[in-house]
């Protein structure tokens, strides 16, 4: 490009913190100007999305309010923790254990959310920005800044700083100091998790998928599992486990202030050093994963098959509803946004059942089937949004709204039904309570079919913004994470309420241990679930018939 074509300030030197008015300038921007530009871009996209979509704005506000309430409660709790119990050794120990467990849960939460929701904020997705001349480091810093400047990041930072209120003396300063790497570990960990899962799912290589899953499991589970095993051998199991957890990678940075308060400065220095090493390792892993991601071209569409291989279309009933069911089912195995669920769903119950066995709490293993039954239908929550404007292909056809609801519901039920059954059997088998199968299945049926019914209605009402692959890099799904999380809460809450009769009977049957009550719970659960499903499919189908063109218009405006 010809130098000096356009007059104006020297591009790199004169770009101020805001970096305004550089539109015409050629040449590279400075690091600061680039960061400012990316951040402005991210908030511009957010503002435009929310302005165009009132419902999403409401959900973001609701999410913000809910998060703020949790944060305020946490801060009040931290202050109270600092005031209660004086300076006795017992009080110090309680404080330390609370902070360690709290810090660990916070960090794990940040890392797990991207694994289970797909609507994660991705305005600055490296793959979308790969066509621009940006350094990887700049991109990573921009993503961290985005994480820190949005509601969850701000609230996390506030709570992290508030941990200082627990301590007295020099430990206060140490707590304030450690909050910085602590929050960074949360944000970077979350980004690493998101990057890893998208790489793993998008890859066509099974080996890579397995490797990522194994590494993720090792990083997340092994230290915690190890700590628990160590704790079990200690004279006081729970406390012992927590003390061991204090030195696990994701918690160690939160341990340092308490060590200072206990008068162990050398250990505190070691904890801080370990924490910084953890942060450095996470950053390096994230960087490597981002570089790997930007080298892959988009999303694998699945493998080719021989002509004549119709997949589910071969055996589904040859009706409009059957076609939609077959198409949905094919997407479960070919679209990464669905496949994600198939990766996570077996993982979670496996962990819960294992956990139930380790800490000897059979209730966890008993409850896992209804839990999974309630979670699986949530994928349909954004079903129409995942279709995007491809929904037009269905709207062109004479398929009715009810055909659509029946087809999509059948596809999920075909996966979720057997999965729930297997999980119930395994869970109960592991804790030796197969006699509880009827009430557990009754509760699961009510929750599964009820959730499908609720979502058959809600997904015809609400179009959630979701990530698209291979689209305009700036057509963002800003704030999507919050929308899908709050929306999922709402659906789960309504399902829980509607399924209450079956849930109540089931729990009563388990507690009382009366066999006939269990069979009653099974009957009530199935009947209630089927009724909810039929009502939901009818209502949702009617909505879809009336609102089809409007839904397509919404899909056009949110994505493609």
């Amino acid at each position, binding site marked *: 490009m010809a130098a000096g*074509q356009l007059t104006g300030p020297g591009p790199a030197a004169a770009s101020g913190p805001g970096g305004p008015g550089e539109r015409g300038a050629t040449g590279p921007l400075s690091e600061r100007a680039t960061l400012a530009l990316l951040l402005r871009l991210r908030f511009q996209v957010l503002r435009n999305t929310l302005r165009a979509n009132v419902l999403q704005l409401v959900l973001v506000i609701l999410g913000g309010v809910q998060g703020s309430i949790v944060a305020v409660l946490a801060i009040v709790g931290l202050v109270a923790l600092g005031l209660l119990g004086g300076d006795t050794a017992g009080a110090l120990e309680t404080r330390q254990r609370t902070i360690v467990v709290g810090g660990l849960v916070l960090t794990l939460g940040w890392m797990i959310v991207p694994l289970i929701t797909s609507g994660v904020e991705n305005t600055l997705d490296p793959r979308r920005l790969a066509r621009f001349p940006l350094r990887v480091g700049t991109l990573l810093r921009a993503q961290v800044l985005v994480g820190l400047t949005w509601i969850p990041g701000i609230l996390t930072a506030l709570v992290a700083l508030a941990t200082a209120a627990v301590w007295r003396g020099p430990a206060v300063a140490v707590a304030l100091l450690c909050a910085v790497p602590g929050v960074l570990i949360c944000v970077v960990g979350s980004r690493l998790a998101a990057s890893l899962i998208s790489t793993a799912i998008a890859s066509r290589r099974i080996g890579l998928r397995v490797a990522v899953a194994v590494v993720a499991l090792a990083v997340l589970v092994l230290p915690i599992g190890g700590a628990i095993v160590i704790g079990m051998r200690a004279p006081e199991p729970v406390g012992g486990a927590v003390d061991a957890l204090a030195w696990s990678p994701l918690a160690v940075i939160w341990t340092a202030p308490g060590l200072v308060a206990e008068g162990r400065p050398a250990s505190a220095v070691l904890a801080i050093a370990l924490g910084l090493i953890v942060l450095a390792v996470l950053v390096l892993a994230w960087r490597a994963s981002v570089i790997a991601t930007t080298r892959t071209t988009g*999303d694998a*569409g*699945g*493998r*080719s*098959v*021989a*002509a*004549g*291989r*119709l*997949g589910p*279309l*071969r055996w589904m009933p*040859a*009706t*409009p509803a*059957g*076609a*939609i069911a*077959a*198409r949905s089912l*094919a*997407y479960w195995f*070919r*679209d990464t946004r669905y496949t994600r669920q198939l990766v996570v769903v077996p993982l979670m119950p496996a962990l819960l059942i294992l956990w139930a066995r380790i800490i000897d709490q059979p209730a966890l293993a008993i409850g896992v089937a209804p839990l999974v039954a309630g979670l699986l239908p949530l994928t349909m929550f954004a079903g129409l949004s995942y*279709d*995007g*404007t*491809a929904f*037009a*292909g*269905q*709207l*062109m*056809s*004479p*398929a*009715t709204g009810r*055909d659509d609801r029946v087809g999509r519901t059948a596809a999920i039920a075909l996966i979720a039904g057997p999965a729930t059954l297997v999980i119930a059997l395994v869970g109960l088998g592991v804790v030796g309570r197969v006699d509880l199968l009827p009430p557990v299945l009754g509760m699961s049926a009510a929750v599964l079919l009820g959730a499908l019914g609720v979502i058959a209605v809600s997904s015809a009402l609400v179009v959630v913004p979701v990530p698209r692959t291979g689209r305009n890099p700036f057509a963002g799904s800003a704030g999507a994470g919050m929308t899908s999380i709050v929306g999922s809460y709402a659906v789960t809450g309504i399902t829980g309420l509607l399924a209450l009769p079956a849930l109540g009977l089931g729990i009563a049957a388990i507690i009382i241990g009366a066999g006939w009550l269990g069979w009653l719970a099974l009957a009530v659960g199935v009947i209630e679930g089927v009724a909810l499903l039929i009502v939901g499919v009818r209502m949702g189908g009617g909505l879809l018939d009336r609102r089809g*063109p*409007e839904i*397509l*218009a919404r899909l*056009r405006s949110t994505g*493609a």
Partner: protein
Amino acid sequence: MPAESPTGPAGPAGPAGPDAPLALELRGLRKSFGAQVAVDGIDLAVPAGSFFGLVGPNGAGKTTTLSMATGLLRPDAGAVRVHGLDVWADPLAAKRVIGNLADGVELFDRLTGEQLIVYTGMLFGLDRATAAGRASDLLDLLDLTTSAGSPVSDYSAGMRKKIGLAAALVHSPRLLVLDEPFESVDPVSAANIRDILTGFARSGGTVVVSSHSMDLVQRMCDHVAIVAGGRVLAAGSVDEVRGPGTLEDRFLQLVGGRRHDEGPEWLRGS
């Protein structure tokens, strides 16, 4: 739901004479997006059996008009009839007789090309054997047989157009509405598609295509409408509309907007 469509496949329609029944009739169609008026009162009459071209500059409202004509976008005002069926009063009946290739929408691209056609056929109520048989005919016709088993996401832009066209044809519609069917399609395939469409119109079906290519429309279509700014500027048989000159001359004369410079200085090669 009635299993059989009210009208047979590729129904018997007379030749496109001046008094032929209408395959598509738009009356007073309007659509605004916020303050922006996209379609500002469009009337069109497409005779059955005609090959109808819809031409206009970018942003003329072609896609908006065709979306409203096929039941994908609800008009603010106006009526649409397809072979006498009111599209917005009874959308399902009208959609049975329309084959639609929409522009600017995605396809279910995780299905293979063949699966996409069979899926569409089944949506229109075809039985499996018929849908599969027609899918292989269409793939063959459009030179997609070697890619039949590949996911549509691996297709090029031109192949996507072709598979979209195949999906529009699978239920043997009476009216084909094709938005930019030749965009990014290679010359050989474009010629093949042209033959298919001409044959379809000759056998009594009706084809409506939107296109930027005046040349193509002039050679291929027997009727044409020029739209700009959401209004119809001229409509009728191609010979009526173009008069003594070419269609492109007439178009530029009606629409205007030709520039007579070579762009800004920085854009010129050194």
